[in-house]
């Protein structure tokens, strides 16, 4: 079955979403992420959505679900690389992605997560 790869980067997980998501893929990804966090003790999850051309309520819910489940398992999620047009549309759609932190790039996301694991600060939070 088609699957979105979940890569391990030190204490973080890196997920790059490049395909048009559908239900099964989304559910599989949620399962995979939670399994990897508990297997590897990951403390952060980076989800790169820079190649997504839209984020609708379905994808938004998936991102929020992953963030919520990861948090329960002790890992923070940062969604990185959202395209500006996607961010503008998301706001108009009414989706605030509450509980999901965002950063402009994978590097910025890593900084946020590593910074966060030391200080627990939310100051660098950037809302799309």
């Amino acid at each position, binding site marked *: 079955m088609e699957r979105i790869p979940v890569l391990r980067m030190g204490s973080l997980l890196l997920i790059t979403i490049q395909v*048009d998501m*559908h*239900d099964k893929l989304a559910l599989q990804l949620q399962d995979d992420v939670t399994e990897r966090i508990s297997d590897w003790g990951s403390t952060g999850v980076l989800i790169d959505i820079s190649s997504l*051309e*839209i*984020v*609708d*309520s*379905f994808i*938004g*819910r998936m991102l929020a679900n992953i963030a919520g489940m990861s948090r329960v398992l002790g890992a923070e999620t940062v969604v990185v690389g959202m*395209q500006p*047009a*996607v961010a*503008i*549309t998301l706001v*108009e*759609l*009414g*989706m605030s992605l509450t509980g999901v932190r965002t950063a402009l790039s994978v590097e910025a996301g890593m900084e946020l997560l590593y910074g966060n694991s030391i200080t627990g600060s939310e100051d660098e939070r950037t809302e799309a």
Partner: protein
Amino acid sequence: MSVQKREVLPVKNSNDVVLARQKVRQLAVELRFSLVDQTKLVTAASELARNALDHGKGGSMTVEVIVNGARSGLKMVFEDQGPGIANIEDALKDGFTTGNGMGLGLGGSKRLVNDFSIETEVGKGTRITAVRWK
């Protein structure tokens, strides 16, 4: 008002939702909508197609390139023969869902287009029309 182009696509499964999005993107590009406007159109199409599938038991999407005087636009019509919407006002409220969604699709897609109308009859089905003008 004249119709320059019309295409009808089925919305019967989750892959059809992907194809519906791609069709709307293609026409929006042809019409030279800005990237933000393209994104709004495709996102609205995704929400309404998914609703037709999840709540309306599947249906169809008709997309039209329309021209009204000097203005051109993209019109999307989503039709299904599902259960209909009992209370349109409630259904449009952000956060209202009868499923396990976030209840954002309907009200959100209304905000993403210029003209939006719902025709529905309980037990018969639903037709939603959304237009964005250039």
